[in-house]
């Protein structure tokens, strides 16, 4: 996990103590995005506010910022701008993401490298604006890549890495970069904002082209896109190719993370997952988002008590790191999966725990999966709770005993009493 030490702050003049949302806005600036289209929604607002300062204040020369009247229009404009071959950025979450859902499909269907920050929040009703990844995960089957950030620095870094992956001509897909509302978006931490030349070296500006290899605007090569296609036409094949591209993006994600580490010196595991104290672990917890950061501390403390526990941070949900999960299943005896999102009516109730079970079901002698749920709608998850979660894994491993109050096979931590 990336830890920005105070020494970095002192030594590096580019380090700023900023909110997670400001880190996201800075990433868009560093990436030299050409068109921004956005609509405010809590807790994303400070992203669009900071970008307004950057663009209207002349710090992003040439960048067009369309202040939209709705999220549906936001993604429509982003699609339009990307089709014409510009680097685009937007940010939203929760209800806003649901409102743009139709255009989310459109962006992936046109195979556009759009990067969108998702400042994840709970889904209404009842109204809820606090950290919950149900929003981004509900876009599971749209053809977008999606990743979670655990730290402020990771928000900045992941957005840069995302453009690298999305714009690869073998990928050409959009991507969500999600992080927990308020917990990361509205708290301040030191973040290294990299030197522009260095960023340009990692992520060069787009070349002088009329668009992308598959879509462009060029009067000399008029192109139509999206015509009605019969069931006997290539519709199935277009969709299949999108699926394959998403799976094959895994290698690109790994490469982007590797190159990022080489250039900037910050490591994010293999890009898809990041391990913490896994070398001798008997049991491990798979976590994602900001809770994965606090889980590191929980792991440290439980280890001091003599238990060999480890943690794996899930960085990407799509493409899903199936191979990595299978390897993990072979390494440990119990694999806890802690979700901060609900997949209603699914086998475990947790979108990631269900996916992990599916990934492991054909592997012999694999770890037992222990699905857990916490932090829904931004409910606080304390360090003590996380330590207890780890202890439950240890207990399950040693005695085979599960807590008595499991709900349909999943341990819901931190529930209030309900009648």
């Amino acid at each position: 996990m990336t830890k920005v030490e105070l020494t970095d702050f002192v030594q590096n003049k580019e380090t700023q103590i900023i909110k997670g949302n400001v880190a996201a806005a800075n990433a868009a600036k560093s990436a030299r995005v050409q068109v921004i289209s956005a609509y405010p929604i809590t807790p994303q607002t400070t992203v669009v506010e900071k970008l307004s300062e950057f663009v209207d204040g002349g710090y992003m020369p040439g960048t067009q910022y369309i202040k939209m009247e709705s999220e549906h229009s936001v993604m429509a404009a982003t699609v339009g701008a990307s089709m014409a071959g510009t680097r685009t950025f937007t940010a939203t979450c929760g209800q806003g993401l649901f409102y743009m859902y139709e255009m989310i499909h459109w962006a992936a269907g046109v195979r556009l490298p759009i990067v969108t920050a998702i400042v994840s929040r709970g889904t209404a009703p009842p109204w809820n604006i606090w950290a919950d990844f149900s929003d981004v995960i509900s876009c599971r089957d749209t053809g977008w890549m999606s990743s979670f950030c655990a730290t402020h620095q990771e928000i900045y870094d992941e957005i840069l890495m995302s453009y690298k992956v999305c714009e690869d001509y073998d990928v050409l897909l959009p991507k969500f970069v999600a992080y927990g509302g308020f917990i990361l978006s509205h708290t301040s931490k030191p973040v290294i904002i990299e030197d522009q030349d260095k960023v340009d070296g990692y992520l060069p500006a787009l070349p002088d082209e009329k668009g992308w290899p598959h879509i462009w605007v060029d009067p000399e090569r008029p192109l139509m896109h999206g015509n009605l296609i019969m069931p006997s036409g290539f519709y199935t094949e277009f969709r299949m190719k999108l699926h394959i591209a998403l799976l094959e993006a895994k290698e690109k994600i790994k490469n982007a993370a590797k190159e990022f580490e080489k250039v900037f010196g910050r490591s994010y595991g293999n890009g898809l997952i990041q391990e913490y104290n896994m070398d001798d672990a008997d049991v491990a917890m798979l976590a994602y988002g900001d809770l994965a950061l606090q889980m590191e501390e929980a792991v440290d403390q439980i280890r001091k008590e003599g238990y060999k526990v480890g943690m794996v941070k899930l960085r990407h949900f799509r493409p899903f790191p199936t191979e990595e999960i299978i390897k993990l299943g072979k390494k440990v005896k119990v694999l806890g999966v802690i979700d901060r999102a609900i997949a209603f009516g699914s086998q475990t109730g947790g979108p990631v725990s269900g996916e992990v079970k599916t990934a492991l079901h054909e592997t012999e002698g694999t770890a037992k999966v222990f699905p857990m749920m916490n932090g829904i709608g931004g409910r606080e998850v304390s360090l003590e709770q996380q330590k207890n979660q780890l202890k439950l894994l240890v207990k399950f491993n040693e005695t085979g005993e599960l807590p008595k109050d499991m709900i349909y096979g999943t341990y819901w931590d931190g529930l209030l009493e309900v009648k």
Partner: protein
Amino acid sequence: MVTLKNVIEDEIALQEWFLPGNSCCAGCGLEIALRWAMKALGPNTAMITPASCLNVVIGLWPKTAPNFSQFNMAFAAGAAAATGVSAAFKAKDYKFPGQGWDEMVSICFAGDGGTTDIGIQGLSGAAERNSNIIYVCYDNEAYMNTGIQRSSSTPHGALTTTTPFGKERFKKNVPAIMAAHEIPYVATCSISEPLDIYEKFKKAKSIEGCKYIQIFAPCPPGWGYLAEDSIEMARLAVKTGFWILYEIVDGVLTLSKKSKSLVDPSKRLPIIEYVSKQKRFAGISEKTLIEIQERIDNDWEKIVDQLECQSK
């Protein structure tokens, strides 16, 4: 004033940009509207086409009739997507000046459903921001692509598959709504006046900001008349004063040639001349007919009021 001579001398206009062999119905009003709009705009155009007949009549993949950049788009997304394209042109021109990006036109070509109903939020947003686009509504007065359901642009009294006894409400006046946004250019056209279409699109192209043009485009199967009568229907709509041809440049209203003389009510044909020729008005009651006629006369009074106001 554009004459046929101007068109003949325009090399771009002599070419076809919406090619023959497309899948339009015989007598399709949309086809004429698009053909003449593109004669004025030419190839430096990127067109967004939200869901409408146009998505289908351009041809089934991989065949396609537009000989210019054309992108199908989701129903409610037309104005916003065109705004995005326009922003990209600006960004491109900043980075790579002198390559003609500043000459590119971003246009949205939508039906009346995509404009007056599902797309009006995006359209209003684009107008308020004064996005540099041309937004076109080809108005065939119902959801023709899905099988003739009523839209808010369907006229009072018209039968559709969702108004089996005739529509109770009047047609939504979207050009007036757009004028209320105080955009630099609003115009109405009819497929019976192709030179007027050509002239208005030329003008729209030369203006920076949000331009709105609504083209009256009759639909033979949707309205119930013979294919060869499309032009006649459009002409009658103008002559009865049901469809008023005008443009509003920076807030100043000017009646176009064919509508100018109709300020005098005696010059307008009675509406029965128009509705009696279309099956969609079959069985229309006397009461409804009077209501339509009164509405037309009222609309004209408003036009006259505005013209008088302007001349003061």
